């Protein structure tokens, strides 16, 4: 009874919070990440939290919060298979590849585009296993989730400093 009262008094401001997908994602994300980090904290008991494991938790939280999307399944697979988290960026090598390509003739435009699409596929977790069209749709929501993730991480970091 008391619990119900308490719940009533905590009536929500936004009437339908669950409909806004950005809010839903961010909420899920922080709910996954923060307890995980706390657990890490407690388990480690040392002053040093391994940067790798944090990154692992960050990626894990991302994958768990976005389970509607294909790429999250791939990400989850990647994460659970290896305890050593694979970094999602290989920025330097990608950049070099792009430069190389721009030096070629503009005649093979379609080929260039194909290569760039493959490039993009590599960025997306599981992108290489998808068709190009699917990949392009998935990239859209991947980008959105990445953006939300950065916001969430920023606020978490801000809160604790």
């Amino acid at each position, binding site marked *: 009874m008391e619990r119900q009262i308490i*719940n009533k*008094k*905590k*009536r*929500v*401001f936004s009437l339908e*919070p669950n*409909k*806004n*997908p950005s*809010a*839903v994602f*961010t*909420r899920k994300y922080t*709910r996954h990440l*923060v*307890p995980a*980090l706390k657990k890490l*904290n407690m388990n480690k008991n040392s002053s040093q*939290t391994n*940067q790798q494991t*944090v*990154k692992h938790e*960050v990626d894990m939280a991302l994958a768990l919060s976005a389970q*509607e*999307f*294909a790429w999250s399944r791939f990400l989850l697979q990647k994460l659970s298979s290896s305890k050593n988290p694979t*970094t*999602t*960026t290989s*920025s330097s090598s990608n950049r070099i590849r*792009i430069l190389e390509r721009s030096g070629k003739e503009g005649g093979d435009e379609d080929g*260039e585009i194909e290569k*760039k*699409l493959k*490039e*993009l596929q590599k*960025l997306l977790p599981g992108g290489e296993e998808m068709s190009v*069209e699917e990949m*392009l*749709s*998935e*990239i*859209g929501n*991947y*980008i*959105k989730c*990445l*953006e*939300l993730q*950065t*916001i*969430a*991480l920023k*606020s978490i*970091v*801000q*809160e*604790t*400093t």
Partner: protein
Amino acid sequence: MMKGALETDRLLNSMDMSVLERQRAYLKYHNPSFDFPLAGFFSDSPMINGFLGTPGLDIPVIYSETTVEVCDPSLSISPEDITGSGNFKKRKFDTETKDRNAKKMMMMRNKEEEEEEEEEEKSKITEQNNGSTKNIKKMKNKAKKEENNCSNDSSKVTKELEKTDYIHVRARRGQATDSHSIAERVRREKISERMKFLQNLVPGCDKITGKAGMLDEIINYVQSLQRQIEFLSMKLSVVTPRIDIDMDDIFTKEVVSTPMTLIPPSHGIVGSGYSHEMVNSGYLHFNPMQQGDTSSDPLSCFNNGQAPSMWDSDVQNLYGSLGV
């Protein structure tokens, strides 16, 4: 929506009108408020199936819609000057759309056309445009004329598919008409459609035309986002030891509600047991009266009246960016 209108305008003025684009333009012309079913995620509408739902099924939907439109007898195709070799860009927006889409909509029979004289074609087109929809349907359909190629003597080929559940596609002038290349073309159109959505998503991408440039931008953007996340997680690993029990309250609150009000202190909320409850309910109030945690730094600000202002800016920040 303005942007969408401008976009369609730009599309129609460009050389290469794809099947999908024209249909889009047509739909948009007739239903300015038509919200494309593919834009679900970006407009923050309920995310049912993710971004594009079922990719590949969109096209038949659009086609079926537009064929209904054609049968509407009130659809008037103005018999304006249709010079095949003229400057398409001079034409008005609406006649262009109507014209092209009218030609495109008429795919009833499975015929292959022979090469015809341009004059004959023109006259037939005017006939088509003047006649009723019934006549139009009966008429043999001509190939779409690309803007400046009409003076060519190259063969104009029209290929119509049987009106089945297949995707209706018309081969353009000078393009191969075997099923492979048509399928290829459809695929390419799908891809460019998706690219347009990505264009809206990636900041600064709308000024870039051309697939390659846009792809570059997108790649760079994704890479920069990933790098940012890496950097932030590095920061986080430094900061993590200071994370406290009530952190999860904080963030769930931030995300859920925009205007924050304060619970009257009579609640008397303490401890992690309650905080679990708060987390689970999903509807949270900020409680300035958390007791028993006066020691740690992050929470001290909650205990005095300064908290609301701090929250507000954070929340505004979050929501400003969430409102993307």
